[in-house]
């Protein structure tokens, strides 16, 4: 059995107040340099929701603008207005902060999120009007509490404040008095991840056109950890998000691998379906508060808006072969092994050229490569360069070395086989997977046949190993030879008809005699 990409969901959440209160660049600065110019200037650089809607990369992320169209827009993009400004796109939506805070409360099953009653009353109708929300989720939203009580919880009970337009409108309570794993800070981070994952799950299931009950397994591949002092990373984000999303027929588990997590999870999902263990598996991830405003100091220094003000989320539905949707080819897997080494050439070799060589393919047999799709508008001003472009240069260099392309075609390779990054710098979110939605569209349309998704992860950040990590997989056009529903192939049908004809002829001959 092959596994196919049935659909994908991509969502963004505009969280300007979380940039200020929860991004680690800002929280660290408040500890080490509370009177800094950066903290004073920061609020002036926060974008409005309308600004984020007219930001080109955001419109690409939710599917309203294609990667090709984005590539044709000269950089930088932060000073340009995208003519498409809808908050809804073919893949998902851009949710404003006020709706998201209500969604967070709906996703909390331990009565930890407390919202100001006036805030709930003011914004509940907006969330109810969101077409992706259903009655079950809306019914989970409470009336809220007095504003004074919210203020008391934050001042006296170590609760993490929830802010909107600079005002305290709620809080997340700690889930334990002394366990740091259940502190208000950690619960806030995890509930944000869960709520944005729920939004991505709902979008993906809707886009795939399947019933919620058809989902049998969910894999969460974010970079957060939930657990308590006895099992710090016990999990399970996947099942907790599936519960709120109403995926009642699903179980699930979490897969981690820093930014390489989504690519690992996709391979696992494809293998689970291909093995017959589960018919439909959804890979999902919510966003990360810690990375909000990560490169904010450089952006503010250069007079730019804070561009890292969006939480990202994605979900991909992987299902049994239907003879139509693009296939994940498990015979072409790239893997960075323990012994691969960390030199860029070794990394790209293990992830790109080695698996293609094993499959007898040239680099140019892959129409598009999707390595880390970080938005260069964010990374270039911060001195981190154009990450996708750096990956393409290395892939092209190895392609020259293998004789797949001429040296003079290096620049053309990036143009023809590359993409311009559009994903927010949310760690795991940009890592290869933002392209799956567009890849599915383009493969179904017949404009391309094969793409490679590449995920890379900085394992050394966990201080358990100095190793780097990476995994890649190939998605290609479906040959259309899926087994028929009843389990009878075209060949078998022909044999059955031939047998019936022979028997009929024999009967006629018998009658004639």
């Amino acid at each position, binding site marked *: 059995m092959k596994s196919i990409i049935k659909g994908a969901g991509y969502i963004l959440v505009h969280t300007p107040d979380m940039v200020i209160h929860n991004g680690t660049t800002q929280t660290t600065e408040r500890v080490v340099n509370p009177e800094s110019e950066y903290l004073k200037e920061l609020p002036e650089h926060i974008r409005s929701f309308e600004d984020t809607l007219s930001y080109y990369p955001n419109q690409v992320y939710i599917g309203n603008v294609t990667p090709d169209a984005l590539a044709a827009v000269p950089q930088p993009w932060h000073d340009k207005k995208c003519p498409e400004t809808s908050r809804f796109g073919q893949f998902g939506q851009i949710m404003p902060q006020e709706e998201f805070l209500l969604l967070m409360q709906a996703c909390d099953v331990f009565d930890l999120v407390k919202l100001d009653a006036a805030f709930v009353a003011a914004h509940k109708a907006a969330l109810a009007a969101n077409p992706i929300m259903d009655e079950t989720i809306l019914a989970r939203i409470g009336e809220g509490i007095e504003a004074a009580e919210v203020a008391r919880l934050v001042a006296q009970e170590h609760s993490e404040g929830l802010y909107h337009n600079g005002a305290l409108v709620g809080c997340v309570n700690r889930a334990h008095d002394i366990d740091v794993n259940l502190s208000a800070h950690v619960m806030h981070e995890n509930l944000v991840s869960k709520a944005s994952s729920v939004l991505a799950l709902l979008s993906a299931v809707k886009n795939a056109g399947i019933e919620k009950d058809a989902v049998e397994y969910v894999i969460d591949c974010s970079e957060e950890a939930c657990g308590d002092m006895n099992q710090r990373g016990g999990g399970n984000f996947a099942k907790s998000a599936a519960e709120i999303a109403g995926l009642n027929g699903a179980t699930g588990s979490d897969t981690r691998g820093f*930014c390489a997590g989504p690519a690992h999870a996709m391979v696992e999902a494809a293998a689970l379906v291909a093995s017959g263990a589960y018919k439909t598996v959804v890979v999902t991830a919510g966003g990360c508060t810690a990375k909000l405003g990560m490169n904010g100091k450089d952006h503010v220094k250069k007079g730019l808006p804070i561009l890292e003000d969006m939480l990202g989320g994605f979900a991909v539905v992987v299902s049994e072969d239907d003879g139509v949707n693009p296939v994940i080819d498990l015979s072409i897997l790239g893997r960075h092994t323990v012994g691969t080494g*960390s030199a*860029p050439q070794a990394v790209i070799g293990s992830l790109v050229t080695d698996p293609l060589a094993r499959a007898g393919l040239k680099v140019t047999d892959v129409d598009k490569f999707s390595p880390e799709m970080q938005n260069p508008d964010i990374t270039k001003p911060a001195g*981190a360069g154009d990450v996708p472009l*750096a990956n393409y240069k290395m892939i092209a260099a190895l392609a020259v070395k293998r004789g797949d392309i001429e040296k003079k075609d290096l620049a053309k390779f990036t143009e023809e086989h590359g993409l311009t990054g559009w994903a927010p710098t949310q760690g795991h979110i940009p890592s290869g997977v933002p392209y799956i939605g567009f890849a599915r569209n383009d493969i179904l349309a017949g404009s391309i046949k094969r793409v490679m998704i590449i995920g890379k992860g900085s394992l050394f*950040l966990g201080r358990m190993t*100095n190793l780097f990590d990476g995994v890649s997989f190939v998605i290609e056009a479906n040959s259309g030879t899926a087994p028929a529903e009843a389990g009878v192939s075209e060949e078998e049908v022909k044999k059955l008809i031939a047998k019936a004809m022979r028997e009929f002829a024999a009967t006629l001959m018998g009658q004639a005699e």
Partner: protein
Amino acid sequence: MGILAGKKVVVIGDRDGIPGQAIELCAKSAGAEVVFSSTECFV
């Protein structure tokens, strides 16, 4: 031996550029003493 021979070296690699370990090996092969080496992630 090059300009790094006998020098103490601090290495900060970039996960999307040249990782610390690779720079470390180069520096050592050029005769340097690597006193600190790390790879950082900026994305």
